[in-house]
């Protein structure tokens, strides 16, 4: 049995935990305004472009609407989700931190204030229909915004007359919000919790079904590749400061965070590994900061560009570092992806490859459970799959790596099991 560790730390109340997270949208808002002023961006035009783009994978909002507008979009979405966490009086556990950070990160490519709302509404109708409180489903709905591009695609790709298009897109979004809760719960059995981005797997299945139906009506849905390709030093500084802030918060809550950090590395990371419960909030925030700095280091090491998709990848890692990820279980997977990328001759500095490296850590529990060798194989398999499955759902599932991770885990874990002996 793996139990929680004995740690001594400052006892934070719920509002303080929310405030720690609230710093992110506040900083994003000010940074966005700063960028708009310095780069003389048109904020209204930028936000309009973000809201009205089809947002199919990969649509980098930095390129579509500008860096400033993208940060303001992320801030608005961040505030909205924080409000929901406060409104429904949810315990700020590791999974909620992961959900918040993931939504925040994907607000730089794919999610905007217009395309996520129908999914929340669908979740509300589901709760109403099942006569359960909305707070029971809010977490799944936050993650389900992975399918927000479907709303935008139908609303803004010109398939339907302008006067009906958003209503049509929103209706599909509401439908997805309604069905995602039972589907995501059901899909987890396929990979037994070895794929941390479970909604990515469920969304991949839903996306495949919807895309196939739309394609049968001759609607052309295919991946995009709109990327911001400028090196922007201020983004590195901003993220570096934010992750350092998490490390400092970790120290503030638990003065022995550095000394006790090895405790977190003992966990395999398989769902449910809620670090807030197992090692406390101090070590959790410390781990999030460390993982953020390491992710940033990987991007710098391979001379990648810090754009919307890459920031989403980094924030998803940071978020899930409260719910299963740590350097020890992520390293073999990342190594596997790097080896595979090198062997097949991929451009290691390209955004496509960098985000595969970052998001591949969705299957960190495989390495955490079965060790270095199997972890490397899983990473290599992941790269092979993730570069080929996007076409199936046409890019409407933002968590493409979660889809791939689910397939890798569901395929690999029973095979590993076949070679194990004992009861």
């Amino acid at each position, binding site marked *: 049995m793996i139990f*929680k560790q004995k740690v001594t730390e400052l006892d934070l109340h719920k509002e303080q935990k929310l405030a720690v997270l609230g710093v992110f949208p506040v900083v994003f808002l000010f940074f966005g305004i700063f960028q708009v002023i310095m780069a003389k961006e048109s904020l209204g035009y930028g936000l309009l472009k973000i809201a009205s783009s089809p947002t199919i994978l990969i649509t980098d909002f930095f390129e579509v609407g500008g860096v400033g507008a993208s940060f303001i979009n992320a801030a608005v979405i961040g505030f909205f989700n924080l409000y929901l966490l406060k409104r429904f009086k949810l315990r700020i*556990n590791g999974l909620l931190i992961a959900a918040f950070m993931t939504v925040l990160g994907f607000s730089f490519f794919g999610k905007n204030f217009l395309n996520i709302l129908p999914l929340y509404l669908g979740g509300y109708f589901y709760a109403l229909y099942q006569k*359960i409180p909305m707070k029971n489903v809010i977490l799944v709905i936050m993650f389900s915004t992975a399918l927000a591009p479907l709303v935008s695609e139908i609303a803004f790709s010109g398939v339907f007359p302008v006067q009906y298009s958003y209503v049509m897109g929103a209706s599909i979004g509401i439908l997805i919000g309604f069905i995602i809760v039972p589907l995501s719960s059901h899909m987890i059995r396929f990979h037994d919790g070895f794929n941390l981005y479970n909604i990515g797997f469920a969304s991949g299945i839903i996306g495949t079904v919807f895309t196939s139906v739309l394609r049968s009506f001759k609607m052309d849905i295919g991946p995009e590749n709109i990327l911001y390709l400028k090196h922007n030093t201020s983004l590195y500084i901003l993220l570096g400061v934010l992750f350092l802030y998490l490390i400092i918060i970790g120290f503030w809550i638990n003065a022995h965070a550095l000394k006790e950090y090895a405790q977190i590395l003992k966990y395999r990371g398989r769902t449910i590994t809620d670090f807030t419960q197992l090692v406390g909030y101090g070590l959790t925030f410390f781990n999030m900061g460390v993982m953020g700095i390491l992710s940033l280091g990987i991007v710098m090491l391979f001379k990648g560009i810090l754009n919307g998709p890459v920031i989403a990848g980094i924030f998803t890692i940071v978020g899930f570092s409260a719910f299963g990820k740590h350097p020890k279980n992520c390293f073999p997977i990342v190594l596997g992806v790097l080896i595979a990328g090198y062997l097949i001759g991929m451009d290691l500095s390209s955004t496509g490859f960098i985000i595969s490296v970052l998001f591949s850590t969705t299957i960190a529990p495989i390495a955490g459970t079965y060790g270095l060798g199997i972890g490397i194989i899983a990473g290599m398999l992941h790269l092979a799959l993730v570069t080929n499955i996007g076409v199936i759902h046409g890019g409407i599932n933002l968590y493409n790596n979660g889809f791939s991770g689910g397939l890798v885990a569901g395929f690999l874990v029973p095979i590993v099991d076949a070679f194990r002996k004992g009861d």
Partner: protein
Amino acid sequence: MRHETKKICRIVDELTTLFLREDTNEVDFKIKKEQDRTLIQITDYETHLSDEEIAHLKETLNAQRQYEIEEYYWQLAGETDDEAELTLVGAMIDAATVEKRAGNLYIELVRLNVR
């Protein structure tokens, strides 16, 4: 569908796996559905768990009911025989008493119905 009965069965499945794998060869379960709650009583005979492990078990099971975790992950309970999902069980129940008496471990879990 809320799957209330199946969720109770999943809790029992998870704990059955845990005790048979890590502690004992004999375990009793009694499940009682009442109007506003469900009681799950477990007797784990001749337990080998240490006092520290029992204290940890009690703490984990009493973490707090977390409806959002339950709604998302309940189908994971009892799924594998490799690792315990005690955090999940703790998120699916409202209270737990864990006591060791005369070499046996007695556990009572209380799960309130969704209001």
